């Protein structure tokens, strides 16, 4: 339960229900600000660069990338795992906190879920294009075909991955949409322009707010929450089996599934923090996204950072303890020292050390510091994926197949394109969708407002 006397009120500024609707819908009603247009323009340019890179990849082939026979997985898989990780937190945030009945989720879940949907969309592009002939991508579906019928290999983690990512995208998008239906109805009922009324009315699916609807809405959200919690854990475990079920040194490890899940939630929460700070600043939502919201995220980050540090230490310890020369080589000669030492230490410092600054209340309270640290975590998590993929592949069992890997401009363009796609998606979300779940915030308003009379009683007797 949320103890208002202890933790302060969840929503500041003595709001009433009408004010909540007005405040949250305001960005939709107001004209598009200049910074929005500028940011959208830049993101479109980035996206264009990505589209060109994809066009070249598709028309010429994977040979335009820097990948080779040894390092067959390059930036694409790094970026795929990175985006999926970011996409993880939205659902993790929303679902775990829903099941645990954490009331502070209400101001943040909508943006976190939006982030999930866009990030998973970005992630899904990479393996699709990495398969080579994108026009034959449908071969991965087990459908009655004219090739035998030759079915797909259900024992392959790559197939599991395909299933997991598509299911995750579908489920998180429908969970997100389902939560927005009442808010679309709020916009519809307040809209003065006919076009807006018709558009939001269509998306509101005839929602009226009757008890019949709310009853089912509540039951369904708990059912979906409970069931999607399993998915959050399983999706990234499945991503980790892409690596863990192989025999490459540094990958062949049982720690991978939990390590990937925690890492995903870590990077996702960091991205939630980045996003919430931006929303709060640009749209002046400090009454809804309060300091204590950001404080709570910072505390979760410091805790997960400790788990990450422990996981890194465990991997290194096991490499030594296993007595395997190859594991020893990978960790001590190719990660901690050697060609890729910079990437290794960037990962450790960004993920395990820098977030420890959140132990200090001053750092947690400072928006600038929190913002910078959240960016560092995202960089660190990118380096973590680089470490796992490139260091293990570039120097495997046979020194004759050792090689180095450098991305080409096409690969970099593809990544920048997805960054543009993400930013554009988030900007569209800012403008056309209520960024905070209106009905949910209203639902917790009374229960979490500090009543002046209660306040007096709660003091020392």
């Amino acid at each position, binding site marked *: 339960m949320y103890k208002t006397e202890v933790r302060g009120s969840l929503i500041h500024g003595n709001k009433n229900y009408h004010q909540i609707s007005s405040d949250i819908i305001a960005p939709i009603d107001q004209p598009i600000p200049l910074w929005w247009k500028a940011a959208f323009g830049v993101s479109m340019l980035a996206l264009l660069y990505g589209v060109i890179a994809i066009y070249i990849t598709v028309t010429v082939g994977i040979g335009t990338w820097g990948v080779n026979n040894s390092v067959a997985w390059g930036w694409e898989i790094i970026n795929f795992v990175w985006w999926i990780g970011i996409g993880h937190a939205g659902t993790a945030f929303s679902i775990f906190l829903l099941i645990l009945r954490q009331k502070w989720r209400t101001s943040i879940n909508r943006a976190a879920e939006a982030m999930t949907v866009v990030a998973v969309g970005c992630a899904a592009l990479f393996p699709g294009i990495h398969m080579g002939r994108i026009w034959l991508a449908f071969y991965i579906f087990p459908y009655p075909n004219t090739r035998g019928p030759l079915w797909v290999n259900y*024992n392959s983690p790559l197939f599991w991955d395909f299933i997991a990512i598509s299911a995750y995208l579908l489920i998180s998008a429908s969970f997100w949409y389902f939560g927005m239906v009442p808010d679309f109805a709020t916009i519809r009922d307040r809209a003065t322009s006919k076009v807006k009324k018709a558009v939001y009315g269509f998306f509101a699916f005839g929602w009226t707010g009757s008890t019949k609807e709310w009853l089912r809405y509540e039951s369904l959200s708990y059912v979906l929450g409970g069931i999607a919690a399993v998915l959050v854990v*399983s999706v990234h475990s499945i991503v980790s089996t892409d690596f863990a079920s192989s025999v490459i040194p540094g990958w062949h490890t049982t720690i991978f599934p939990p390590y990937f899940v925690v890492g995903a939630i870590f990077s996702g929460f960091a991205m939630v923090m980045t996003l919430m700070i931006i929303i709060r600043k640009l749209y002046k939502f400090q009454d809804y996204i309060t300091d204590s919201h950001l404080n709570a995220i910072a505390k979760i980050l410091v805790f997960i950072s400790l788990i990450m540090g422990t996981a890194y230490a465990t991997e290194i310890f096991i490499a030594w303890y296993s007595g395997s020369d190859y594991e020893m080589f990978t960790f001590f000669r190719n990660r901690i020292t050697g060609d890729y030492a910079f990437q290794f230490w960037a990962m450790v410092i960004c993920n395990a050390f820098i977030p420890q600054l959140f132990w200090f209340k001053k750092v947690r309270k400072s928006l600038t510091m929190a913002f910078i640290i959240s960016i560092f975590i995202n960089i660190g998590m990118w380096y973590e994926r680089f470490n796992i993929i490139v260091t293990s592949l570039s120097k495997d069992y046979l020194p004759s197949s050792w090689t180095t890997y450098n991305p080409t401009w096409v690969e970099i363009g593809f990544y920048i394109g997805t960054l543009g796609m993400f930013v554009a998606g988030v900007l569209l979300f800012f403008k056309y969708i209520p960024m905070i779940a209106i009905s949910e915030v209203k639902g917790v308003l009374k229960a979490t407002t500090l009543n002046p009379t209660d306040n007096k009683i709660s003091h020392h007797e």
Partner: protein
Amino acid sequence: MNSQHIISVFDEEEKLLSAIHKVKEKGIKIAEIYTPYPVNEAIEAMGKKSRFTLAAFLFGFAGAVAVLAFLMYTAVFDWPINYGGKPTNAFPSFIVVTIVLTILTITLASLFTFSVRAKVYPGKSFVMPDERSMDDKFIMVFNKEENIAIPIDLIGLLREEGATEIIQKELQPLI
């Protein structure tokens, strides 16, 4: 067929709840309650229960059986492939796909059920007794004809309970 309805508007959740309590005590039938967010007491007062969890379980069960059966049929019976001498019935590795697709089945089927049961779907024509109910008002609606036999001044009672507005108008049957 349209019928005469009494629409009472409340500003506060507490006042709505106490009004519900009073009205029910007198044996008056409430046609529907509209709130800006889910109010559990109001849902309970309407005497409805949801069996979503049971439905979700059944969807999940059916989904799991169907997925496993499909995997077995394709990989073991229809076209067994030798992957390095491993058994074709690789049951443990079927589980991963089964779990994910079961969750997908539950989600999609539950959403569909929700759409059907709560009658929430694109292009639905709906009756909203008061447009402010998704903003900041709590609306309780009574069908006049249903309560015609009860000799009580309902409007007076609602005013006493703190209804800020009481509107009488003809509405289509509330779905």
